[in-house]
């Protein structure tokens, strides 16, 4: 390993790597937020929908969970452009990750809602709350607490999956690193480096999740 050369090259490439990191964060945040939003509806449809809705949503989830994210990304990128939906690689990638995230969140939300005892809904009804109010004030807050740990897991999965966007040419952190490697041939050093950066990212997410969990835990 050539450490000083590595440091020089790292310094040279810092702007590109930072831009890549920025894209990774942007992709992850966008996909997780959109995916969660969509996933909550997926979970609701699975829990409260009628039979045809549940069946349709089940298909959606199973399809997304049965397909490798990598294939999903390639499919989103190429198929949509052929159909005439003109998405950039970035948008197509975020779309794929969003769908992937929504299928996970959907399952999590469904599980969490199912785990709340029926008595909670009945108690809420008996003091005259409507379904919407029951959901907003009684079910959702309880579900959220149960969802959080798994949701944090999903978020780290998405950060990891964001590397797959490099395949369709989105210059996120991994591709930015590969660009440096292709110029410098310092593959060992830079792959270790980028692995470490991802580790830190996910580690931070985990810690943040734990902190929030502690804060909102019910005594």
């Amino acid at each position, binding site marked *: 390993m050539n450490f000083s050369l590595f440091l020089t*090259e790292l310094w040279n*490439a810092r702007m590109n790597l930072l831009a890549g990191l920025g894209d990774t964060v942007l992709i992850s945040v966008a996909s997780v937020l959109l995916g969660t939003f969509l996933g909550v509806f997926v979970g609701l449809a699975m829990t409260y929908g009628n039979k045809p809705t549940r069946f349709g949503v089940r298909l959606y989830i199973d399809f997304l969970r049965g397909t490798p994210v990598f294939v999903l990304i390639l499919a989103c*990128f*190429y198929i949509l452009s*052929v159909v005439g939906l003109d998405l950039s690689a970035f948008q197509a990638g975020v779309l794929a990750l969003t769908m992937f995230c929504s299928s996970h969140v959907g399952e999590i939300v469904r599980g969490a809602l199912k785990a709340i005892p029926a008595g909670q809904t009945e108690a809420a009804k008996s003091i005259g709350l409507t379904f919407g109010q029951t959901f907003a004030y009684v079910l959702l807050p309880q579900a959220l607490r149960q969802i959080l740990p798994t949701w944090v897991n999903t978020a780290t999965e998405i950060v990891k999956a964001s590397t797959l966007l490099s395949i*369709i*040419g989105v210059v996120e952190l991994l*591709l930015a690193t590969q*660009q440096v490697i292709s*110029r410098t041939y310092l593959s060992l050093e830079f792959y270790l480096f980028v692995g470490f950066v991802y580790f830190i990212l996910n580690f931070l997410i985990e810690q943040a999740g734990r902190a929030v969990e502690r804060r909102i835990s019910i005594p």
Partner: protein
Amino acid sequence: QEASKLQQVLDRGHLILGTGSTNPPWHFIDSDNKLKGFDVDMGRLVAKALFGDPDKIEYVQQSGDARIPNLVTDKVDLTCQFMTVTAERAQQIEFTIPYYREGVGLLQMEGGDYADYEALKAAGSDVTVAVLQNVYAEEMVHAALPEAEVDQYDSVDLMYQALNSGRADAAATDQSALRWFMVKNPGRYHDAGYGWNPQSYSCGVKPGDQRWLNFVNTVLHEGMTGVEFPFYADSFKTWFGTELSVPQIGFPVEYK
């Protein structure tokens, strides 16, 4: 009828060029964080012809298998990304005239045991050739040096290391990569002077727009033989380290 791509590009004010970013000397991000390389220069040549300014380009960094889809779906105006011309691909997109002929070459240490290709060939089975691992690697080397020992390596740097340490007398690799390596390490290596396994590199455009294709062809052609020759030759020298001789003046060589 739709206006030609040429008009669209002119109206837009910049060219959208599809290329890669991880393969020097073709297209890569240099230490000044700019996309550079021979492919990139071909795009710049077209931009210069369009706007008189080689920098009026928006780059789309794409992976190898996005080359054709991005063209057909109009995500890029032009793709220059060391695209090997094959008949099958020519059914999907339209290739421009070639701007480089790739082949396999042999890299040797300066001042090694064998002077050039002829010496290597004469030495027969005494010669060891390092090559990047590949199903056809042995076959390919034997096409040039039928008796040579073939050592297959897993990565480019290992292959070069084999050469440096004298474990191999020559390394067989793409001529472009070989030349780039010589550019990066001036004075240490030389080319054995034999190339084989030819293939053409061309830019590609979306099929069905003859006007645009013609325009790009003209630009490339004049880069290699006409007014823009200095631009092309300069780029060639930068990436492949070789000084091109000036095209013959007088009767155009292509009609000979």
